């Protein structure tokens, strides 16, 4: 089991943070373009899913998987989106994504007066804490990445 990468978007589609661990293939487009493509895909999936659903939804879209990876999605009521790509063996990780939001993003970015909201997070503390949290996850394998 392994974690490939993680995106953090705000409600306007700005990529607040991106980090990767075991990523074997790049999208082949500039990073900025990739964030936009990712956000656009999630935006469309959200509207797609809300139209397709036979019942009223509470949490909405949770995850999708292809033959090689699984994308986990978590959105807060304020529109912050946490997206983590892992391999297929990882089960539901809503609590992990919620932890990244509540214990890392809120504590280290929102409550930090030096971090302007709505822009890429510059905080070195946030980066290192996030990195060590993800590396400590039970499904983060130690395989060389």
């Amino acid at each position, binding site marked *: 089991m392994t974690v490939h990468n993680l995106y953090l978007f705000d409600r306007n589609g700005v990529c607040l943070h991106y980090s990767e661990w075991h990523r074997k293939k790049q999208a082949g487009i500039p990073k900025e373009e990739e964030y936009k493509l990712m956000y656009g895909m999630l935006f469309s999936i959200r509207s797609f899913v809300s139209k*397709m659903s036979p*019942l*009223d*939804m509470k949490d909405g879209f949770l995850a999708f998987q292809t033959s090689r990876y699984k994308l986990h999605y978590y959105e807060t009521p304020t529109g912050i989106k946490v997206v983590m790509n892992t391999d297929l063996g990882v089960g539901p990780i809503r609590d992990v994504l919620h932890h990244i939001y509540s214990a890392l993003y809120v504590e280290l970015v929102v409550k930090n007066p030096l971090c302007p909201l709505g822009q890429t997070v510059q905080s070195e503390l946030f980066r290192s804490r996030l990195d060590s949290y993800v590396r400590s996850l039970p499904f983060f394998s130690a395989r060389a990445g």
Partner: protein
Amino acid sequence: MAIFSVYVVNKAGGLIYQLDSYAPRAEAEKTFSYPLDLLLKLHDERVLVAFGQRDGIRVGHAVLAINGMDVNGKYTADGKEILEYLSNPANYPVSIRFGRPRLTSNEKLMLASMFHSLFAIGSQLSPEQGSSGIEMLETDTFKLHCFQTLTGIKFVVLADPRQAGIDSLLRKIYEIYSDFALKNPFYSLEMPIRCELFDQNLKLALEVAEKAGTFGPGS
């Protein structure tokens, strides 16, 4: 019963077959007196609740029936505009049924081609080499399973999150498509499937899959 619907999308992203096998009823009927304490608005030729969520009536629900008569888009059964009808105090008390708006065939076409693009983007953004597109998409109310054949046809099944055995059902649908659509001399490739045998056998396969799928935890 827990398989909601089946879509078949051709390689260009066009919807060539759609079947709604089961639609759970989430409707609320209530009698109102004047003035109406809900805010209704017109959206996409339908009257939707914009404000005033209560008693199982939620924002986004559409007016489905007035006094037991099904409405027709933004018109009542006898051809009057719903919003106008409901603004007239003489028509009260009135009983209105609300529910999730049903997808129109145009919306289904649009959603099918939308999924076609999402499928492609899903494979482009992959962090691993050689990934397919979206095979399974999970939400809290349903799971969407997709199987793409080597020739590019996509079979999409929407089912309850707990329904098991969808992968074998998708392959079965492919088999039925090959047997009853492709082998039908009157069927032209990439065009909508209108074959009675295809219909019958697909419905049969859905029934079998629904019965065979277990609903135990973790299945």
